[in-house]
């Protein structure tokens, strides 16, 4: 029954024209970034390297290697993973509230399906939608950029300098980063689900979710020492950017990066744990409320 219900949910999501707005938006952003870098990438990366040029000298050959598919994908991920919560909230915020608004919720709940089962199916379907978005990103941002810009060792810019990751050591990091992003976005999904259960139209949950993401992101990025220990460690937005950790590598005594290494894996795992905890808490509360709720729409 679970698989049958899941198939139905996926059909409902993917038969809906509005679902493809998110896919279209991703394609447009990826394409625009790729075009811009293809035709004027050098000045963009000169700007990026400005901060480091005081202590490093970069020759043209290095700059040529520097702009390759792996780096472009990193830039795209940096840009898109901030916007993607909105795209996820569009579907997750609509999951229950949209059905209530359409009037189909009451009909669905007269069927022999438990409310918990209904919630789980909806949540898994929205997770699959998130995965679909990330797969699309992987295809166009990673594989597309590899095709357009070629591959080489990957340069990662950090505040304290640059790191060079061997090209043979890059792809698994992207796989891990996309996997981590799926969990991070599912956290947003869980929050949107909670609001979706409380509302009777989709707009409220979508706006409420985005407001929370926005406020938490601002708090996470503010450099106010008082918040560093008191609030920031508990905000999910502090942990959603931990995917970058997969691109921070260890170096040996000579300064050469070590293949397959991750600078601070425990920190990534801790962030992952916090996100998973967020998912369980928010989804748990949403399911509890949904089970108690009188369906009046």
């Amino acid at each position, binding site marked *: 029954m679970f698989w*049958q219900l899941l198939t139905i949910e996926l059909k409902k999501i993917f038969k809906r024209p509005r679902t493809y707005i998110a896919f279209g938006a991703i394609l447009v952003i990826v394409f625009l970034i790729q075009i811009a870098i293809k035709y004027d990438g050098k000045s963009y990366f000169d700007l990026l390297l400005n901060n480091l040029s005081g202590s490093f000298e970069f020759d043209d050959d290095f700059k040529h290697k520097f702009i390759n598919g792996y780096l472009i994908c990193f830039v795209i991920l940096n840009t898109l993973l901030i916007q993607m919560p909105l795209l996820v909230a569009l579907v997750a915020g609509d999951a229950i509230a949209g059905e209530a608004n359409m009037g189909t919720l009451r009909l669905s709940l*007269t069927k022999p399906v438990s409310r918990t089962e209904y919630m789980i199916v909806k949540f898994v379907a929205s997770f699959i939608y998130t995965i679909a978005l990330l797969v699309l990103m992987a295809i166009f941002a990673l594989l597309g950029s590899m095709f357009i810009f070629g591959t080489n060792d990957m340069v990662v810019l950090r505040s304290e300098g640059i790191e060079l990751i061997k090209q043979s050591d890059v792809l698994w990091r992207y796989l891990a980063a996309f996997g981590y992003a799926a969990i991070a976005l599912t956290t947003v999904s869980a929050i949107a689900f909670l609001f979706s259960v409380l509302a009777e139209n989709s707009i409220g949950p979508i706006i409420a979710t985005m407001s929370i993401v926005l406020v938490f992101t601002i708090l996470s990025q503010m450099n106010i020492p008082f918040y560093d220990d008191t609030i920031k460690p508990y905000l999910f937005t502090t942990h959603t950017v931990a995917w970058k950790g997969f691109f921070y590598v260890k170096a040996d005594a000579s300064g050469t990066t070590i293949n397959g290494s991750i600078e601070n894996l425990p920190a990534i795992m801790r962030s992952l744990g916090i996100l998973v905890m967020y998912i369980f808490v928010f989804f748990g509360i949403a399911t509890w409320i949904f089970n108690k709720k009188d369906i009046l729409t």
Partner: protein
Amino acid sequence: MEKIIRVKNLTKDFKELRAVDNLSFEVTKGQVYGFLGQNGAGKSTTIRMLLSLIKPTAGSIEIFGLNLFQNRKEILRQVGAIIEKPDLYKYLSVLENLKIFAAMSGKRLSTPKLLEQLAVVGLADRAHSKVKTCSQGMKQRLGIATALVHNPQLILLDEPTNGLDPQGIVDIRKLIIRLSKELQKTVLISSHQLNEVELIADAMIIIDKGKKVMEGKVSELFDPAETVVELKTTDDALMIEKIKQAGWQNIIQEKRSDCILLKLHKKDIPSILQKLVKLDIPILSFYSRHSLEDYFFSLTSAKHVLAATDN
């Protein structure tokens, strides 16, 4: 007789409002059971409780002899329902909608089988149309198809003829009678169209402000030999005076601002009409009203609403 629904002391409070008040009733297998009441009387709240969409504040519901809230899934497998207007997935086709609700009911039906179901409600030729292109009547038919698609034993229909044209209403009436009489399904139907219920129901309950006002077999609730006649004359007050002088005051049921209601035996109508003509007050109209409707209004607070309107 096997009881399919057994409701005892059902009560539902929404904060300060008591929507359903200590309601008890039973529905027997194969019966078409009419559920009557005005808007806000508590019909939809009761039906939603029968479907576990709303949790009662107090009381119990047994369906097929099982406690609803302890055996929800098992019971709902055998129940089909329409609650108020049938809202469906507008961006999907008629067939896709039916397929979804069949699957949610635990039935995997082939496309030909689903088309057969659509043919029952006259929608086979619109199977591939998007629901958003369908009229309200078509949506109502599709709603009925989704309620019947898994061949349930109990069918709960909340205002099923809403939005249907006269032919559609006749078709649904025939379908309900067929479901009950030929297929031995139990049907609970709520409606504000009282003549609808009168034509198809074996028994009915009338509720007002969440409370039971009357329950029984339709044939026992009102005398089919009696009817209420609405009489309009050029001077109603004088007509009433003359009727009283003639000693027929027992036929006067009610004086309204624009007419007089007379309660008559159908066989007496021709002679009474002749006598009224002889009273020499010009008669503007004289027609038989729907008896059940008057009965209903006399029992529920609609009477007070009417009186207030008349004043």
